[in-house]
């Protein structure tokens, strides 16, 4: 029997807020253990939660960025469970009245089709403390670090709309791009600021039944999510074919062995309304205010780049996904660089060069203004591409302007036919064999000759003009 997978994702995203969700403690989990704590996040007797306005705003922006509808009324519940990582006995989470409902993200699936996996809802919740199990000699000890307790999170719960690991991975990449562009989170699976659980079940292909699902956790990269889902699909398919039942439980992904293994029965404790945190009522005016703070989203920006600057869809997607890159690109356009030149040089030269130097585009010494003046000279044929690449390296090393570098190093391109004419004649008389080859119809001889002229010019000749002049001269020789 052929099976298809039904996959839903639960994505925890840590909000980039300076403080925790219900107190003023710094939101810095990597500090020395237990330094960022207070009576509220340690849940001392008499302490009560105060919802951070910043966390609410960042969460709301994230919802709007993902096309979700903010609910006029949402509230916190107590998710009850008893474990030392949660000394108050419940986690504050929005189980009954989530912050937003709906939403979705467009992706291109493996067949090149556009799909829009739907988001069921997005809710806010606090993180719990971190347990560290160690050995003290031969004695096992368990330590609790409360720096993480109360760190603001949102959980994005999707509909079971994915049919393959590929689709889930594309969704996560796109989600990361969009959340980063609204500035609510750094969304890094590697650093734990984005954590993904996948719910996977299988069914006979073409059926619409929903079978028992298995939850898989502990993937720390988008690739691992794909691998874990793929593993789980084949594991379940084999089990069903062997006549075994799939039972509801949680499995952990082991990235080294590339397998999932059972962890525990899936937990589902009660969620009761929290009587301490006031109900959150969002007015239409407030929601509009948040919407006005939303930056242009990548998809909309890509569409605009195609329309406004005549880029291809692929180029536009490449330049619009990162708001820093997009901003840089628009900076170049604003300086008068032709869009095609800007796209090409940004993608193939500047971005790799910045990465190689472990810099950020926004803070690199190659500002849009400096890079633009280089590219404009290139576009006007004042220098050639080789020279431009040399100048770019110099732009990283100092603060001279491109003009100064070109002047100092004599990079200015020679396009004057009179100056080139004698150079070409010299090369033609020095290379009779190549001239003969060209006459016998060997096209690559032309490239060789162009190279010789370039060399003779010290790299400064304009290759376009050389080609024209050479073709003309060689034509007259062979005739």
């Amino acid at each position: 029997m052929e099976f298809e997978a039904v996959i839903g994702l639960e994505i925890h995203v840590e909000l980039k807020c300076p403080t925790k969700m219900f107190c003023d403690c710094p939101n810095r989990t990597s500090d020395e253990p237990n330094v960022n704590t207070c009576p509220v996040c340690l849940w001392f007797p008499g302490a009560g939660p105060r919802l951070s306005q910043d966390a609410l705003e960042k969460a709301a922006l994230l919802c709007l960025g993902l096309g979700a509808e903010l609910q006029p009324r949402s509230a916190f519940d107590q998710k009850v469970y008893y474990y030392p990582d949660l000394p108050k006995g419940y986690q504050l989470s929005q189980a009954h009245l989530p912050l937003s409902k709906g939403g979705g993200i467009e992706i291109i699936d493996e067949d090149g089709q556009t799909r829009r996996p739907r988001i069921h809802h997005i809710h806010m919740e606090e993180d719990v403390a971190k347990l560290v199990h160690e050995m003290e000699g031969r004695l096992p000890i368990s330590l609790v670090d409360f720096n993480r307790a109360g760190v603001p999170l949102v959980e994005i719960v999707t509909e079971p709309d994915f049919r393959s690991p590929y689709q889930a991975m594309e969704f996560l990449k796109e989600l990361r791009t969009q959340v980063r562009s609204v500035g609510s989170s750094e969304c890094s699976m590697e650093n734990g600021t984005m954590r993904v659980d996948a719910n996977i079940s299988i069914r006979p292909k073409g059926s619409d039944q929903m079978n028992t699902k298995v939850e898989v956790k502990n993937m720390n990269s988008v690739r691992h999510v794909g691998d874990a889902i793929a593993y789980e699909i084949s594991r379940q398919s084999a089990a069903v074919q062997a006549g075994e039942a799939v039972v509801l439980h949680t499995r952990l992904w082991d990235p080294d062995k590339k397998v999932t293994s059972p962890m525990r029965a899936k937990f589902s404790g009660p969620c009761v309304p929290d009587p301490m945190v006031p109900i959150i009522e969002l007015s239409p005016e407030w929601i509009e205010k948040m919407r006005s703070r939303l930056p242009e989203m990548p998809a909309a920006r890509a569409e605009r780049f195609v329309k406004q600057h005549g880029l291809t869809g692929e180029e536009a997607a490449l330049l619009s996904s990162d708001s820093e890159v997009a901003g840089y690109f628009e900076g170049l356009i604003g300086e008068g660089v032709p869009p095609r030149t800007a796209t090409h040089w940004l993608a193939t030269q500047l971005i790799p060069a910045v990465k190689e130097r472990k810099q950020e585009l926004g803070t690199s010494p190659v500002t849009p203004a400096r890079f633009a003046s280089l590219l404009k000279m290139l576009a006007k044929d004042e220098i050639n591409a080789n020279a431009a690449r040399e100048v770019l390296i110099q732009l990283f090393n100092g603060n001279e302007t491109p003009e100064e570098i070109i002047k100092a190093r004599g990079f200015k391109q020679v396009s004057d036919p009179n100056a080139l004419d004698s150079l070409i004649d010299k090369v033609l008389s020095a290379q009779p064999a190549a001239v003969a080859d060209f006459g016998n119809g060997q096209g690559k001889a032309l490239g060789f000759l162009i190279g010789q002229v370039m060399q003779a010019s010290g790299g400064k000749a304009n290759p376009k003009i050389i080609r024209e002049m050479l073709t003309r001269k060689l034509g007259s020789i062979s005739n």
Partner: protein
Amino acid sequence: MDSIFWYKNPDVAAAKSGELKGLKILIQPNISVAGWPTEAGSKALINFKALEDATIVQKLRQAGAEMPGSSRMSEFGLGLQDSQAGEAVRQKITDAELVLDLMGEPRLAAARASVCGFKPSYGIISQFGLIGLIPSMECCGILSGNLKTMRDILKTIAGPDERDFSVPEEKTRDFSLSQIDPQKTTIGIIKEAKKDLSPDQERIFLSSIEEFKKAGFCLKEVSFPEFELFSLVHNMVGSVEASSCAGRYDSVRYGQRAPGAKNWNEMYLKSREAAFGPFLKSYLIQGAYFQFEKYEEFEDACRIRARLVSKMQQLTSEADFLVLPVSGQASSGAVTPLAETYAQFALTTFANVSGQPVLYLPPAPGAVHAGFQLAGPRLSDARLLTLGGYILNLRQGGR
């Protein structure tokens, strides 16, 4: 006297100025004062000393009040078992006492001590630093022999608090004395609140409110058919909230760790089990039962709560205030301590469910009744205290 005090403050500061200068205010050890033992009546917190002052304590200190210490209380303030609330006020050792009202404790304690007891409206007093158990129902109550003292204290401790978002940001409330015109004031008697009184008790209650008639108030019977559901709703919702709320008291850090556990998990379980008394434990287990097993019934109770609150609001169009017996004196013959406690508080829980203010007034000297409760609409605290003052003034021969 030590049978009353749980903790005596060794250095009571006598303030030179302030609205409450010279006033002695006793608290209970579920109200945080930095450095004071704050066990909230529970072995789970037997070694806990508060880290900072509750907001109301800060305000009392700033207003010049003296804080002689804390009185013995029931476990987490639920019910009056082992509680000495009201006794120090009765003996005039203190001018007033602050007691959390979870289901009517300060009102029944006041009845026991024959002093006045007040439960303010929900949401006007900061809960920061109060070790509660039923957050949506409880409120800091005030006991005193003197209604002016009560009003001064309320004025001091009420108001928004940046540390407690459940108190709305709003302009300072007016707690000053207003005028009461008996001819224009209707006082409602809820028919169903008398239902469980014996004929004798009913006769005594009706005679107790003769005072109002004599003073010219308009007395009127009103009907609230679902009144008895207040206690049931309080019991269900209260136990669920308490179960969550007490989740943090594991007795591991501030109580006593149970010895002989095989691993940390067992140590937690055993310590927690040993921490709570049987009465509170039965309440928490009941709450956990509704959380884990009968969640729909808890949701029903929440819906009924909303209905009761709106019906109570409608009653305010029929009467300006309500007068109710305090009950509690008769033995209910209930089989469990929990059921018995709820029977004892059957006529006080309504205000915790609805959040409205209630003032208990003791009988006039020589009168045979048990006193009565006066209730007003939410946020009518000042007018309610004015009405109480009017009655007390009449008793002393004033107009």
